[in-house]
């Protein structure tokens, strides 16, 4: 039975971790490049989810093939990421890159407040739901327990695809290299011909798309309610910090750790479930002050 519980907890943790990773990875990417902890990330997540639900419900209502809700999720996420992310970057962040990092952070906090409010104005306060993708994929039976294929198969697969794409992008593409260079020294990067403001824009938009994608993929399994963004953002902070900020693979692993720890807690000691992510974060940072995979290579003197 204990073996069974462990296996169950692993499966549950996996689905949860996949979502967590998708959201946290955008956060960590933006931080890694722009050096900005984007608090509005949580709102982008929520709005991505709402947009997906709206689009999905419309598709279903119009009698389209329910499988279309899958591309629908991506369309909604990209639309939200590009439009909102693009606007935020162009209208606000552009003006403050040279300023104190604290100011940058606070601008995103202000954006967070605005978006939370707008989201309520647009979608109201009734919970939204769009579970079509979940239904069309059906269930799988593992260890005598019904799981939705969406959660135990599709989400982890999506997370892996994102992980490897992003990894390839950063490591092996020109744009990726430019992103890393700008991250470290904007002036020096400009001096070798890198268009820093384009890099910032691209990165922010990509990060925003991931946030929205996280929301989109969460839609089938959760009710969309006001305040979902505020909760998600702290969790992804915890994931990103545990991993070491800017660490893509690290975010995957720490999302996994946190996700699994959380589901173990549900089985073994439900009381500490909510504290789990923070507990893990404190413990990890205690041993590795720069996070699991963060490193300090720069020689200062």
């Amino acid at each position, binding site marked *: 039975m204990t073996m*069974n*519980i462990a296996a*169950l*907890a692993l*499966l*549950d*943790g996996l*689905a*949860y971790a996949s*979502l967590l990773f998708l959201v946290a990875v955008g956060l960590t990417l933006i931080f890694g490049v722009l050096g900005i902890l984007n608090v509005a990330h949580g709102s982008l997540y929520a709005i991505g989810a709402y947009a997906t639900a709206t689009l999905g419900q419309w598709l279903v209502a119009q009698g389209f093939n329910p499988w279309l809700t899958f591309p629908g999720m991506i369309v909604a996420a990209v639309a939200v990421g590009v439009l909102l992310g693009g606007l935020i970057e162009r209208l606000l962040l552009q003006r403050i890159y040279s300023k104190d990092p604290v100011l940058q952070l606070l601008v995103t906090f202000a954006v967070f407040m605005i978006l939370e409010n707008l989201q*309520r104005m647009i979608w*109201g*306060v*009734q*919970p939204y*739901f769009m*579970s079509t993708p*979940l*239904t069309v994929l059906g*269930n799988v039976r593992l260890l*005598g*327990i*019904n*799981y*939705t294929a969406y*959660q135990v198969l599709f989400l982890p697969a999506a997370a892996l695809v994102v992980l490897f794409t992003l990894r390839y992008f950063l490591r092996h593409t020109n744009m990726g290299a430019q992103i890393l260079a700008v991250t470290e020294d904007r002036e020096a990067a400009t001096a070798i011909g890198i268009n820093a403001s384009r890099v910032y824009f691209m990165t922010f938009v990509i990060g925003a798309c991931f946030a929205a994608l996280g929301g989109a993929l*969460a839609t089938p*399994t*959760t*009710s*969309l*309610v*006001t*305040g*979902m963004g505020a*909760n*998600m953002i702290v969790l992804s902070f915890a994931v990103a910090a545990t991993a070491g900020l800017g660490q893509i693979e690290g975010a995957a692993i720490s999302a996994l750790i946190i996700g699994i720890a*959380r*589901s173990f807690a*549900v*089985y073994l000691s*439900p*009381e500490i*479930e*909510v504290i789990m992510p923070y507990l893990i974060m404190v413990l990890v940072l205690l041993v590795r002050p720069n996070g699991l995979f963060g490193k300090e290579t720069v020689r200062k003197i």
Partner: protein
Amino acid sequence: QDKPAELNIGITTYSSGAASVFGVPARHAAEMLAERINAKGGIDGVPIKLHFIDEGAGLETLLTEYRRLVEDEGMDVMFASISSGVCNKIAPLAEDLEVINFMWDCGTQRILEDDDYDYVFRTQANATPEVLAPLAYLLKHHPEFKTLAVVNQDYAWGRDSWEIFQAALKSQRPDVEVVAELFPAFGAADFSAEVSRLQALQPDVILSTSWGGDLDTFVRQAGQRGLFDQSLFVLPLAESSLQRLGDSLPEGAIVGARGDHYFQHPERRDDPEFKKFNEDFKARTGEYPIYSVYHMVQAFAALEAVYDKAIAANGGAWPEKEQIAEAMAGLEFQGLGRPLSIREDGQAVEAQLVGMTGTSEAFPFKIIKNIEIYDAEPLMAPVGEESLDWIGKFEPGRLDISGTPFEN
């Protein structure tokens, strides 16, 4: 006293946050009701004016706003609030500020049981009957269950309601084993681990007093993964989620309504006044009313009734607030369910409606069937007694109570 130019009512309700699923419809109701009252000339000729406070903005802001409304804007009556947590803090404040306060929706039974208040009243039932009625219904309709698991939101209501349910269950069915007590965080987005665990445990009954998005998510995830085939669900607050959940709810789940109100109330549904209200509300918001809407109706009904009563007692003159407060005890008024009355401790006596989910051609979502409406008295701790002590003294069979049954 001279009649004022207007009667100022301050209302706290959730415009933001998860509980706005109750707050926003209730607010619409309040606006609708105020328009209606003013259209017929107000209360004794005095038009009413509403002022809203968002409970979702946080307790601090709320308390500040509350004081501002009372002290600076001269509210005559306050309706506060939805959340028990807020009521806990508002009640002593209202008493300090000496302003009439109707706790129009919050459930916690403790406030009026623990302290005496001169200015604080509740215009609907409290948690005790709201939880005991579904339990009585369960005991009557599905007495065969042996194991039970609870999945409640982790905050005052989720904890308190479980405490009451558990104490009562123990007194009636000591043999029932509670196999899991899960309290996922308030507003949790994902219940898959909980669902897996429940599948592994296979309890006969799953109780959840959750509401709003949490309940919706839980029900949907449970349904998708076949938990309904395994366990009987008891959802004392699900009446407020019926319209959203569509066919995600199974047939035969036990649902409650936090009182005796339902837009298909078997005793009222053919009543023209009732129908008119529901139609107007639907026209205004696109939804059928849920319990918080009816609770708002009750608060307004109590308001009108108490002013009538106090004015009469005052020889037709406009009453002082002390006279209003005095008139509250024993007040009888009529919302959109059965008639209500206020006890001497300020607590309203309200019947309870419980039933099972079922399908209907008329609505694209589950409706409540096999309704029973319970009288309030046997389910409420008498004045001066605390609910948990009172439940502690339950004899076996104490809850073998039937409500008025309705075929459909």
